[in-house]
């Protein structure tokens, strides 16, 4: 079964708006939570990642919020741009190399 549950499946946001994608996990051994961005016809690329010792990490317009007690983490895309239109995957790993991926969220930014 899927170890990381991601929602929503898709979202549409206006240019300049905020996109929010949520992920939840059950395995308390997970200690690494990356987000990947995938454009059509391309492989996923690491966007930003967080470890449980911090509750938030920001890189440019992208922010991860992490809630350890709730076993949830989310990606916020601020000031969304048409170039951000892509599929986003959350993932999690527990002390080794295996990544468990969410099902993905297709983000469409309307100009």
């Amino acid at each position, binding site marked *: 079964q899927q170890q990381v549950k*991601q929602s929503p499946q898709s979202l549409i946001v206006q240019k300049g708006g905020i996109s929010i994608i949520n992920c939840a996990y059950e395995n308390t051994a997970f200690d690494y939570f990356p987000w990947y961005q995938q454009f059509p016809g391309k*492989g996923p690329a*690491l966007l930003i990642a967080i470890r449980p010792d911090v509750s938030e990490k920001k890189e440019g317009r992208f922010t991860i919020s992490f809630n350890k007690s709730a076993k949830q983490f989310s990606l916020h895309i601020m000031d969304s741009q048409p170039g951000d239109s892509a599929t986003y995957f959350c*993932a999690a790993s527990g002390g080794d*190399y*295996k*990544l468990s991926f969410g099902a993905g969220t297709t983000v469409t930014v309307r100009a």
Partner: protein
Amino acid sequence: GAGVSQSPSNKVTEKGKDVELRCDPISGHTALYWYRQSLGQGLEFLIYFQGNSAPDKSGLPSDRFSAERTGGSVSTLTIQRTQQEDSAVYLCASSLAGGTSYEQYFGPGTRLTVT
């Protein structure tokens, strides 16, 4: 090459045939991963190679799937007696070493269609 390359980019095969998918990792990367991406689903781990260690095959869905990595570089994923449920995008990734301290770089994938 600058990144991970995979070939072919697309493969259409008839049910029951065998297929081979190739991955060329980034030069110097000792860790190599194969994933499967089915429509509307996330990436599913298949197999992991690290240096000369025995590969982790725990994600292979059946004994029809196998993979090898020759000379610590190029890897081939083989699917025997393909079934329609094998239709998916097969992604390869490599990293400098194993573990989450090292970013996985993905290739563009091979789209496999079994008719």
